[in-house]
């Protein structure tokens, strides 16, 4: 793998230790805590408050991609009849289920329960059904109706439906764990969750500074705790340290890149298998990704007031991947303006149809409204087999030369 060519964070070892500890504990040491596989958009606060140990197959899919293990694991799944056109996170997960010895860290621990939430895609329903069949573990599906409304607001009946399912989810987990949910505990976890989410949002907002203190791969790597450890003290501590470091960079005008000449926005999931190599093509031009739509998915606004169940129902139904392309275009325009970017790059991600279908229209809308050009690059978030570096570099070159010509 290529090396990064921009400034490394001092908190990087802390991040590494935190995640290693998480995966080791998940695998070998979680006394009294049943393992729950959860999707990245599931209301993990309830899972934690009932003292289960949540693990995130999607995050593990990213890890497989970054460690170069995806292609082989995907092939295991494909040999069992899973189409090569399905999401590569899910395919590598199926590969891991069937052949753990090829999988990083020896694979994820067996789930005692499975919690899937449809607010990010339809794939997680089918993926978790496959996992439920494979492990014989009980499955809970949280159905969060998609929001097509232009104002991004869920219908009252959708909120009522999600809230009553959250009660069901609590009852389901209480039955599985033979524990009672302590409301106090849920509030504690929620407070920690809200604190970490707010810190993460503040870190992201700091990249409005010129020069930007962070580049996209920093955001991608540092989002791991907000996904996998949301609702824990360690998570809050990590983001406090990160925020301090990033604030210091901003105060001293320390740039992530050797020299920031262009500011860009990134759309869609990272290209994990060529993380540094891919983004280095932009570093060559002094182009820094100062903001992205992806890691903002976990910078949602959570409310401490009111009924916690209704608050969770609202928060998790309104996540950006559960919103129309019209709302996503509007959000992107807001980021383009607030982060003062020169252009945007959209990863048309073969593995992620809900994120990618609609990108062509979003690009047109954003360019029409902001005057900023957008580049679309087709790749896959974790399967490297269709990645063509030379072709991608040529497209990046054309795009960057266009930006240079604009002056």
């Amino acid at each position: 793998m290529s090396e990064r060519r921009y400034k490394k964070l001092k908190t990087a070892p802390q991040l590494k230790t935190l995640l290693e500890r998480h995966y080791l504990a998940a695998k070998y040491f979680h006394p009294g805590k049943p393992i729950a596989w959860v999707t990245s958009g599931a209301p993990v606060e309830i899972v934690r408050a009932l003292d289960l140990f949540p693990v995130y197959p999607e995050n593990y899919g990213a890890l497989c991609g970054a460690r170069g293990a995806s292609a082989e694991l995907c092939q295991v799944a494909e040999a069992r009849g899973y189409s090569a056109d399905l999401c590569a996170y899910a395919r590598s997960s199926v590969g891991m289920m069937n052949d753990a010895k090829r999988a990083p860290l020896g694979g994820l621990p067996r789930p005692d329960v499975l919690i899937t939430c449809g607010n990010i895609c339809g794939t997680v329903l089918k993926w978790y059904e496959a996992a439920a069949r494979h492990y014989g573990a009980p499955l809970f599906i949280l159905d969060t109706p998609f929001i097509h409304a232009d104002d991004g607001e869920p219908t009252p009946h959708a909120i009522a439906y999600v809230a009553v399912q959250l009660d069901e989810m609590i009852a389901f987990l209480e039955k599985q764990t033979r524990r009672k949910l302590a409301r106090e505990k849920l509030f504690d976890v929620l407070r920690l969750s809200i604190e970490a989410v707010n810190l993460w949002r503040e870190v992201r907002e700091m990249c409005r500074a010129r020069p930007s203190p962070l580049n996209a791969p920093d955001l991608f790597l540092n989002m791991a705790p907000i996904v996998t450890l949301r609702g824990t003290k360690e998570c809050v501590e990590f983001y406090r340290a990160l925020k301090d470091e990033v604030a210091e960079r901003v105060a001293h005008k320390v740039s992530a890149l050797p020299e920031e000449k262009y500011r860009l926005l990134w759309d869609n999931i990272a290209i994990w298998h060529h993380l540094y190599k891919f983004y280095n093509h932009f570093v060559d031009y002094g182009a820094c990704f100062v903001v992205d739509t992806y890691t903002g998915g976990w910078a949602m606004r959570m409310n401490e007031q009111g009924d916690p169940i209704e608050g969770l129902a609202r928060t998790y139904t309104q996540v950006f991947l559960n919103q129309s392309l019209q709302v996503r275009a509007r959000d992107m325009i807001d980021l383009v303006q607030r982060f003062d970017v020169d252009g945007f790059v959209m990863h048309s991600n073969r593995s992620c149809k809900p994120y990618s279908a609609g990108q062509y229209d979003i690009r047109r809308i954003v360019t029409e409204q902001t005057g900023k050009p957008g580049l679309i690059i087709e790749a896959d978030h974790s399967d490297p087999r269709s990645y063509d570096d030379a072709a991608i570099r040529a497209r990046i070159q054309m795009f960057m030369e266009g930006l240079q010509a604009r002056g």
Partner: protein
Amino acid sequence: MPQIHTSHPKIGYLCTYVPEEILHAAGFLPVRIMPGTTPPTRADAHLQSYTCCFARGCLDLALAGKLNDLAGVVFTHTCDTMQGLADIWREVFPHLLVETIVTPVTLNSPHAQKYLVAELRRFTAALEKHFDVRVTDDALRASIRAYNARRRALADFYARRAEFSAVEWFNVMNTALTRPPEELEMPQAAIENQKSKIGLVLLGATIDEPTLPQILDDLGARIVADDFCNGARYFDTLVAEDGDPIEALAVREIARAACPCKHRALDHRIERVLKLVREHRADGVIFYHKKFCDPHAWDYPPLAAALDREKIAHLLLEVEQVAPLGQTRVRVEAFLEMLSA
């Protein structure tokens, strides 16, 4: 009952979870949109090449101006691609009514029905507002009776499908879905189909063009059952003709044989497919899948494994817009030879 003539405004829909009765009761002719057979090049400006040919093909027809007689298009929440397509459609045709009925995914949830009733009422109100029409309970009940009658007629036709060719089966079904409910064109006389010895169950999202039925007719195989959205799943369950009509429509949506985008029970589709094979004494199963259709691709490995366990032979055909005639014929022929051996 509102008088519907084909000259009346039409509203298109893309999935049989759309309750035609509501559109019909509002004075429209609901017509199912099926993709054309020419390459969907116009859709390339809006949808990636790794989305399914159904989504690209339907959008392409609209972009080609071939759906200009539609006053609106109605989606339901099914897969990720259709979810994206609904918003794209809204973006490209801002003057049309483009609505999505956000149907529940977990049909086994005790709360899904209540939610769906509220969602169907929201949709009905949106329709009334957009076109300044009223959907009365009486009109809805009349429409429910009309569509139930059509579903019964199609079920009767299916019961006698051994007498008809696969192409006739395809034509009856696809014609019905674009006509008023009281019009149903049946083939006049049963044909002699001497060669029809091997019985097959066909599985897939939709069957959009008759290449495969034609091949089956040529090779002397019969379709004894199917699980297509524009096939047997369309008339699978009737709507109660008494009580609150919107509730009755919701009850049917939940009770129908589920699309793989939905969750009824972990092995709902596996059990249903095995039952279809047993009940119809099928000799084999053909998966007629569209490339890039995620939900059906996901269901394939567990279904194939279940069929293997039961020693039921199966064949996977993965097609783009039009099944390639030569290649499909060779594969089906080899499969049928294996079945008759």
